[in-house]
């Protein structure tokens, strides 16, 4: 029973990916290129060299966090579209903690930076969480609005109070003690990936090994029954949003501490928050699934740059493939139909 379920959970996303790549091949063919060559470049570019692998890791890391954020909230029945905003406030909080605090030992400083981003993201997400829990205002609307507030607030901060000296709208560089260790001086990959993996473990632990997780999942599956079972629906919704937001916020911390080393003004959304939705969907809202889905998207993101520069295929093609994957995952009935995968139906009292 369990095993069959698990197989199903892996099989559908896998078939969705294959199908999307297959359709993508025709798009490439249509643009006058060889799909085989294009895909070769794509995978070689992202996994075929140390530099490629490094960039793939860099692109994967924030997606694991934002994917976890979306998945965690979803387990409580909440659709957190605000990963983007929570990520942005996380970036800013981490950048400030990184440059303003001085004289801490490196390990401690990094912890403080991570905590700052997590706290900022959690607080940011708590607002739509509270509005949903107390007033029933739909979280989708509010998280989207909070994205814009985050964008414009940080836009002000980086051009005003926290602006570094010089012409550019950036914050000062963070202290060296706040920087995450890079595996090589000429590459950007850093220990942030381990923090991401650790967070996946934490998410799993919280959801399935704690009383809180039992309550959060109960609320997500059946609010009436949860309430009946003495579980506070509002409390768990707010908590789930805070934890969700913290994951997205930490994505910002790790990005600052590992890659950017400062906050750069953001003119339009980075997309990490939104891609997190896709990652969570593909990963079936399971932390392990999220890790693999993020990796796939990391590979596509890295490889598409190569595809564009080497094979001359616009990187939008991989975007197209990404979103086809998502459509197929959501429309899993379609995948089941194409590949004749039977659904295990349970007929109770018919």
């Amino acid at each position: 029973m369990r095993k069959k379920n698990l197989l199903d959970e892996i099989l559908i996303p896998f078939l969705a990916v294959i199908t999307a790549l297959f359709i993508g091949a025709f798009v490439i063919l249509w643009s006058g290129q060889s799909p085989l060559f294009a895909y070769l470049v794509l995978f070689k570019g992202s996994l075929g060299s140390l530099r490629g692998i490094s960039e793939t890791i860099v692109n994967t890391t924030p997606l694991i966090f934002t994917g976890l954020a979306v998945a965690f909230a979803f387990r409580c029945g909440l659709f957190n579209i605000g990963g983007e905003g929570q990520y942005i406030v996380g970036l800013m909080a981490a950048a400030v903690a990184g440059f303003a605090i001085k004289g801490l030992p490196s390990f401690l400083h990094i912890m403080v930076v991570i905590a700052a981003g997590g706290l900022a993201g959690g607080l940011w997400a708590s607002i739509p969480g509270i509005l949903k829990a107390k007033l029933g205002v739909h979280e989708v609307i509010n998280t989207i609005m909070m994205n814009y507030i985050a964008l414009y607030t940080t836009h002000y901060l980086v051009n005003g109070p926290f602006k570094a000296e010089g012409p550019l709208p950036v914050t000062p560089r963070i202290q060296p003690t706040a920087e995450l260790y890079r595996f090589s001086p000429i590459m950007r990959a850093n220990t942030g990936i381990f923090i991401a993996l650790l967070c996946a473990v934490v998410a799993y632990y919280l959801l399935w090994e704690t009383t809180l997780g039992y309550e959060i999942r109960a609320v997500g599956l059946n609010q009436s029954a949860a309430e009946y079972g003495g579980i506070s629906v509002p409390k768990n919704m707010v908590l789930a949003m805070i934890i969700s937001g913290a994951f997205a916020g930490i994505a910002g911390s790790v990005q600052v501490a590992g890659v950017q080393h400062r906050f750069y003004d953001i003119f339009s959304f980075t997309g990490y928050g939104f891609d997190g939705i896709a990652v969570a969907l593909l990963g079936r809202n399971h932390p392990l699934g999220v890790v693999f889905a993020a990796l796939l998207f990391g590979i596509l993101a890295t490889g598409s740059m190569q595809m564009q520069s080497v094979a001359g295929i616009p990187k939008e093609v991989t975007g197209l493939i990404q979103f086809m994957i998502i459509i197929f995952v959501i429309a899993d009935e379609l995948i089941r139909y194409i590949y004749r995968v039977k659904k295990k139906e349970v007929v109770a009292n018919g």
Partner: protein
Amino acid sequence: MVEPVIQMKGITKTFPGIKANDDIDLTVLRGEIHALLGENGAGKTTLMNILYGLYQQDSGEIFLKGKKVEINNPNDAINLGIGMVHQHFMLIEPFTVTENIILGSEPVKNGMIDIKKAEKQVEALAKKYGLKVEPSAKVKDISVGMQQRVEILKALYKGADILILDEPTAVLTPQEVDELIVIMDNLVEQGKSIVFITHKLKEVMRVSHRVTVIRKGKVIDTLETSQTTPQELAEKMVGRKVLLRVEKKEKQPGRTILKVENLRAVDNRGVPVLKGINLEVKEGEILGIAGVDGNGQTELVETLTGLRRISGGSIRMLGEDINNLNPREVFEKGVAHIPEDRQKRGLILEYSVAENLILGRHYKSPISKGIRINHSSIRETAKNLIKEYDIRTPGEKVMAKTLSGGNQQKVIIAREFSKQPVLIVAAQPTRGLDVGAIEFVHKKLVKMRDEGKGILLISFELDEILSLSDRIAVIYEGEIIGEVDAKKTTEEELGLMMAGHKGGIIGEEKKSVG
């Protein structure tokens, strides 16, 4: 020899993992009321859905008046003169009775619906078959009994000769059931045939000419109703000997456990639904609340269990106020709750049986240890309860949604009764269950009563109220309009009270108030 109107031969229908109908033969004669008797999940509704064109059989044939027919959708069925009244009515509430009846085959004059003509047609039809309805009333304003008559008229208007009634009495008061039976007799007298789906033995005995018993998708037997007994039917239906009567010892009730005074509450739209409820439950007694669905039962249960705020009055447990406590606090005071909707309230269907069995005490030791949830303790608790309450499940890890209705209810009962409650609020504890499962639930409730728990039983099934309760209070439009001794009252008296006529002991005293 009366001619057969419907012959279903060798009907087989398989759903993934289950054979809902297995080589079923059914013959319905002209002018007969044919009862289709079986437990939930036996396959009776599936069979009728095939006849009505909602499902297609995998194999087997259907003959109408001797001619083989293909029924691919309900339209085919209607054209062949087959009509079905579903358990849940398919009416448009803001439309009038007439508008609902003519829907889909409206009489038209100059491109407009000729509502005058339609009303006349409806009136004539209603008169012919003795169905009392108000053609111009809106469906939302009429009683459930009348809504059902509208459904029957809808089928007749479309020319039905064969009527399928799916559990038609489930939503009716005893008086409405009587009226329905008169209507059914009327219909068959005029040459219509009726297939009557039910799991209630009493009704089979009362109205049907012949009865076909189905068990696990197979026809067990077809009998002349006059040649059989309820006991025989029950055994054929369940496949073993069953106890139809609840055995209950005399018992002296103890001190008062629950005292509700002048309880008031509003529904989700803010309309007052509880208008000053007074009741009392003592140790070792079952207080039955009789009443037709929608008279405040749901809200009463919710206020008592912390799921709904009260707007006035008081609820006291052993002398202590429990007004507006939350569900967890209410549980800690010793209240167990069997909710009326087991799939929506009582269970998390996508949780395992084990996870469901600890709902409500998941935060307490030994299930919860610090922030951790103790999986081995959950498994242990679950295994014990599965054994003790004879829950039929492949294991404690399977999802609750895969269990049958009876076993789902056992999960809830196991969980609630093992909380060591002082008071048990049991709302529709046997709704939708089959005879075997009902027997189990009733036995357990009586056992809890004998152990000295106080039990508040809310049920729409008068038989259940009468056989289990020590005292019976009748709820009508948010008030207790009377209370009677279960041993001295009759179905007729309760039926009248359920329809709003005051009676009984408290009713007499309160006449000036009401």
